């Protein structure tokens, strides 16, 4: 059974019809890359899955259950984590609090936290620092860490390398690899080679619909079908 299924999802911002019938499937254990130019609706797809911007038509099925129309917190509690675009860490909370908040009341916080801190030694160093004082890369780490500790079955990762120095990107990639060992993942990434490197399969979006999909095996940006939609 697929972890996630999207069936003919249409999503709007006000009158603007952003997702115009998206279909996709994610199997357990996979990393699936979501590709496309700026503004084609990648982030919106993730928001639709989480019901942050509920689709007006179509269904989102998570672990076989129809979650369309549920409250975001309910979807999240069913095991969907989110590493949003632009990180969105809580700037006035400490690093540790940022992690703490993702665990929820029932989670075994201490052990999860220690696990995360061994994964991201940088974060341990700054555990009592307010998150806004962290560098962009560290914030991105924190956002990923926050997405991971929730013990999720599916992690939605939106442009994790955006605005990061290459060195940091490497660390982030390592972190994502670690994470993928435990959860299924959808990865939105503008850095095409990076995406190809990490993901097992890809979907290519244009104008709010899936235009291409397949295995990442051997795919390069030279590929005509990719080139058509990504570069000019």
């Amino acid at each position, binding site marked *: 059974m697929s972890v996630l299924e999207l069936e003919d999802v249409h999503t709007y911002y006000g009158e603007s019809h952003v997702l115009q019938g998206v279909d996709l499937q994610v199997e357990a254990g996979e990393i699936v890359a979501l590709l496309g*130019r700026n*503004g084609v609706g990648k982030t919106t797809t993730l928001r639709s899955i989480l019901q942050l911007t509920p689709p007006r038509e179509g269904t989102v099925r998570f672990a076989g259950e129809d979650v369309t129309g549920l409250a975001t917190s309910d979807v999240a509690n069913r095991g969907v984590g989110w590493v949003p675009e632009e990180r969105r860490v809580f700037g006035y909370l400490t690093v540790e609090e940022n992690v703490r908040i993702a665990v929820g009341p029932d989670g075994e916080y201490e052990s999860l936290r220690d696990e995360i801190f061994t994964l991201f030694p940088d974060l341990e160093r700054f555990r009592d620092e307010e998150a806004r004082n962290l560098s962009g890369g560290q914030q991105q780490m924190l956002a990923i860490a926050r997405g991971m500790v929730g013990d999720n079955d599916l992690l939605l990762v939106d442009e994790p390398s*955006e605005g*990061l120095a290459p060195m940091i990107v490497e660390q982030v990639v390592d972190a994502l690899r670690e994470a993928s060992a435990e959860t299924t993942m959808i990865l939105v990434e503008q850095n095409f*080679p*990076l995406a190809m490197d990490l993901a097992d399969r890809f979907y290519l979006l244009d*104008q709010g619909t899936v235009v291409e999909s397949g295995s990442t095996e051997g795919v390069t*940006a030279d590929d005509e079908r990719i080139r058509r939609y990504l570069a*000019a």
Partner: protein
Amino acid sequence: MLLSTHNLTKDFGAITAVEGVDFTLDHGELCSVIGPNGAGKTTFFNLLTGALEPTAGRIEFAPTSRSDPVDITDAPTHETALLGLHRSYQITNVFPTVSVLENVRIAVQAHRGRDSWQFWRNANAFDDHVAEAESILSRIGLAADAAEPAENLSHGEKRTLEIGVALAGDPDLLLLDEPTAGVSSEDVGTVTDIIEDVAADHAVMLIEHNMDVVMDISDRVAVLNQGELIEQGEPETVRNSDAVQRAYLGGYDSSGGAVESDDDANGDVGVSA
């Protein structure tokens, strides 16, 4: 020369959104500005129109109404607008509950001297304002929706209305910020047609992520990355520039020096370097 910036810089605390940009634009030119998210494109527009004050640098503008260039570095928005610098917004930013016609008419009115202070006369008595607004609506193809409240328009129509409002100030320079954002594929053509039409008698700067549009209609393309102007030139030149390919596809710091893509823009960029 219509517009020139010298060492234009804008800091937001630690972030330098626009850094030392020297840029010039000629009358009648259509120049696109591209660059990854957060490159500073919108901020650049904000500096030009006076919505933001630069941290450093200078902006000069030479509208047709003046013989000499004017220093507009510290001019507030309404002054740059009156000088002939008009913009549309990345996020639709019109007057939502009033009619489409009124959206444009109010912008026309802004340029009719003291008319706006005539609180004792009926706004509808100014036939020339209305006529002008109506002609703009015809030009952008919204005449049929003139009476509709702006918020009832479709997204694509709102994007065109954005342009209409900007056009109403009879600009010397029109700044368009992602006019096709969120416009469905069928309608993108309409918007580009309007832009080309407008560009025939106005100077235009265009921020766009839709490369088809950019490459198709621009006289010149300027590329911003991390606040810096890294490349500019004819569409073809820019398209083939390595730096641009890297910056625009890579979307991460290429100035950090760590990117070693020597031969092929599509190579294994950044990750395993």
